[in-house]
């Protein structure tokens, strides 16, 4: 009996392990920055190079920081969702333009619409490293105190925006 049962159990065990493995996205790596203060930055804005934007600007209200670039194909998929989001909800959305050319980024926003209150221009990706960015687009939810509460890796789809991002923002807004 054992002779037949043992291989079967091992087979089933491995199958369960594989099914579990297939449902995990290897691209998703948990960020150590969750519940940590959002790293400081002081960068020129995308639209006006002589003006600077600091991390402090984001404090006081729950905000979203979206890392994007004009060379990033997935950002193009995500963009209409962000446009819709700022149209339909009262949210503070900031951009971090990551390793991009200023002129191309500006054209991109002109063509596709600009959902951002402001985009910080991180030409060399130095701030990107501080935020542990490894695959654009990435989106951070930062609370009123300037603490990172959530990180989304990859493009946000409508469902994720409505079911994950928006409820989280509402919850955080209730906090003092």
């Amino acid at each position, binding site marked *: 009996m054992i002779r037949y049962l*043992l291989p079967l159990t091992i087979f089933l065990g491995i199958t369960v392990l594989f099914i579990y493995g297939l449902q995990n996205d*290897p*691209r998703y*790596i*948990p*960020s*150590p*920055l969750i519940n940590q203060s959002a790293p400081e930055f002081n960068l020129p804005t995308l639209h006006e190079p002589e003006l600077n934007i600091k991390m402090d600007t984001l404090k006081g209200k729950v905000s979203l920081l979206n890392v994007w670039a004009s060379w990033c194909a997935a950002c193009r998929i995500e963009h209409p969702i962000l446009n819709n989001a700022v149209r339909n909800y009262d949210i503070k959305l900031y951009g971090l333009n990551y*390793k991009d050319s200023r002129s191309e980024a500006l054209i991109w926003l002109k063509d596709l619409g600009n959902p951002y209150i402001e985009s910080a221009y991180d030409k*060399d*990706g130095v701030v*990107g*490293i*501080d*935020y*542990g*960015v*490894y*695959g654009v687009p990435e989106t951070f939810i930062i609370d009123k105190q300037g603490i990172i509460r959530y990180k989304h890796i990859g493009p946000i789809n409508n469902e994720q925006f409505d079911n994950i991002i928006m409820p989280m923002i509402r919850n955080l807004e209730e906090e003092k």
Partner: protein
Amino acid sequence: MNKRFMSILIPILFFYAQNCFTNDEPVKFKNILQEEQYYNLLEEVRCLVCQNQSLADSNAPLAQDLRNEIYEMVNSKKNNNEILDFLVKRYGDFVLYRPPLKKNTWLLWFGPFLILIIAISIGIIVIKKQIGDK
């Protein structure tokens, strides 16, 4: 046919090989210790874009940025712990090929031994049974 084929193929291969390396600027160090430290660190750190490549192997732009970052830190005489800590704080334990022993890495470290023990036990049971059958 082969010779002609090779005479076309080889230049093509060289062309592509060159493309793979041109974004790497040569790095210069003050002393050999720093150079060793730099190259050892590159082997220890995983590139998050091409997850099965180390920073030394990867051609991803992020890997290039992180190499520069590590180079700067090595040059300013930071030790290995400080440099790896800098990376772990931003990207998590996943950047390390040898993550620290923690609750969630326990299985990673000891899983292989666990499987070995199970395999040996099964082996012993099977052998014992076969001897018993005789």
